[in-house]
């Protein structure tokens, strides 16, 4: 599916509203991260970069998207619904008994999901396995791994970072949602990650840093990641957690919390007024 920039911007706002509504209905889940990463997913799925076919989700030549931070489920589900994998209507069952929309994604229950995930810090290893597998199978496909910044604390992540550098996996693009929050607080207080760029570079990666709310920057970075040879690429996408809802923005308390009905009303009011106004506040 390929949309214009304008349409992608609008879709990002719509998806934000749907996430908030979904979480109110579910009564539990994660809020700030999914709201902050919308543009990353929209750029990937709706700009024409990613090779996928919702009518044939197991198409062998599809690009692989490994979601390492499964708690972004509300965002992932909404994006995949808009991409045509399943009806948007079904998302109301999120986190309910018997639903295919589990609190964290289960690949056996939904098309378009490559790995059942949840525990963070293991997606990059799986993406490496797929990138190695693609090379062994002589398949020209790109493996994307979407990660959070909190999981940069995990030992497993760095085992994988080292391995991808060693194996020069140029069919691998990692995207880190650098929103600076995790459950216990700001990343730099919980466990300082900086200098993150230099860390990845010293492990043999090409690093691109972008404004993660700027869809054209995301598209440009992903495209250029595909043309880098002999190195894996990581895109560090700086984002604002809770983006679009003023009382959630930059508040790490909203990592794993959902709005009540009053807060939802206010959040939706703010999001409705956001059309055409998304701009980065990072500068």
């Amino acid at each position, binding site marked *: 599916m390929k949309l214009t920039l304008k349409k992608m911007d609008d879709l990002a706002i719509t998806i934000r509203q749907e996430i908030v509504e979904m979480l109110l209905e579910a009564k539990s889940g994660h809020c700030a991260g999914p709201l902050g990463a919308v543009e990353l997913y929209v750029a990937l799925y709706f700009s024409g970069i990613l090779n996928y076919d919702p009518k044939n989700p197991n198409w062998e030549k599809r690009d*692989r998207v*490994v979601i390492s931070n499964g708690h972004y489920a509300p965002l992932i589900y909404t994006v995949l619904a808009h991409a045509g994998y399943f009806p948007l209507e079904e998302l109301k069952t999120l986190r309910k008994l018997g639903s295919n929309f589990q609190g964290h994604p*289960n*690949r*056996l229950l939904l098309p378009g999901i*490559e*790995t*059942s*995930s*949840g*525990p963070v810090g*293991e*997606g*990059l*290893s*799986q*993406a*490496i*396995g*797929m*990138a*190695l*597998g*693609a090379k*062994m*199978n002589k398949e020209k496909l790109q493996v994307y791994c979407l990660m959070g910044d909190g999981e940069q604390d995990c*030992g*497993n992540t760095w*085992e*994988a970072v*080292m*391995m991808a550098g060693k194996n020069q996996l140029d069919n691998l693009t990692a995207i880190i949602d650098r929103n600076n929050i995790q459950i216990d607080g700001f990343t730099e207080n919980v466990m300082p990650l900086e200098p993150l760029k230099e860390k990845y570079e010293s492990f043999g990666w090409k690093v691109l840093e972008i404004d993660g709310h700027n869809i054209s920057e995301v598209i440009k970075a992903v495209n250029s990641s595909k043309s880098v040879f002999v190195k894996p690429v990581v895109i560090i996408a700086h984002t604002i957690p809770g983006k679009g809802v003023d009382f959630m923005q930059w508040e790490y308390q909203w990592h794993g919390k959902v709005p009540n009905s009053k807060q939802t009303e206010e959040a939706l009011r703010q999001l409705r007024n956001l059309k055409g106004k998304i701009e980065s506040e990072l500068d």
Partner: protein
Amino acid sequence: MFNPDIKLNPKIFSETIKQISPRDGFGEGLVIAGEMDERVVALCADVTESLRMHLFRNRFPERFVEVGIAEQNMVGIASGLAASGKIPVIGSYAVFSPGRNWEQIRTTICYNQQKAIFVGSHAGLNVGPDGASHQALEDIALMRVLPNMAVISPADALEARKAILSAIEYPNSVYIRLPREKSPVFTTEETSWEIGKSKELWIPNSKDGQFSGITIFACGHLVYKALEAAKELKEEGISIIVINNSAIKPLDEKLVLKWAKKSKAIITLEEHQVAGGMGSAIAEFLSENHPLPIKFMGIKDEFGQSGQAEELIEKYGLGNEAIKEAVKKVLNI
């Protein structure tokens, strides 16, 4: 006496019986598996020769992945390879895999339903001089609780070879537990092997006198010790039954029930913690289906220590004498 249907090695109690480490059987089997199925890939974490995986690496260098000392990463990579149509075989010491990477196994393999074969070597006290830090005594328990995972503790090198070959064919993930030490190769090429099937190795016949009512379920290289004990007990006029229960999960419920019903009591024997081990698996099943007294022979909530393999087996009460004593105690002799 020996069950003739099982076709055990006729030299079983001869001093000239071959002693081979089950790791060698696994290493050979892995090469055969690689030849038979090009989807087979192998991963190891800096213990390649020790696991005998260099045989596969030398034969299929493009299908071998060295991950360094990074067992968690190794599991995730295996999951990704499985998603790419491969059949990954993961080797390390059992203390580290499944010891260090259990959550990755649970999430990225079992819950994610990607098939991989796990080979945990240096399991049990027989690791010897390296001591307790390297003697995995908990791995059966760790793997047995995972859905979509079978568990095997081969009784000798030939079973280890058959185990890896059958694991390739098996629809689910499989854990194969291997000891470090050499042990007698008492089965033969003709001895049948199947995941989920136990075997009656020693059963009373008319000449053996009346069955005492004691059945031993053993796994791993201790099966041989149980057979030695059975032979010596027979000489003392005590006739028992020995089952090779090396295919631990799925449990061969039919066979377990059959012999439980004929027994007054059973003994389980394993080089593993009693808690959560092979004996526990049998007890869970029998307590619901045919409760009877069970004597658990294994490690009782403690760690091992340095020493020679044989010394440790004796010290922790898993040797020949201990088995005979346990039988007599259960029989109140």
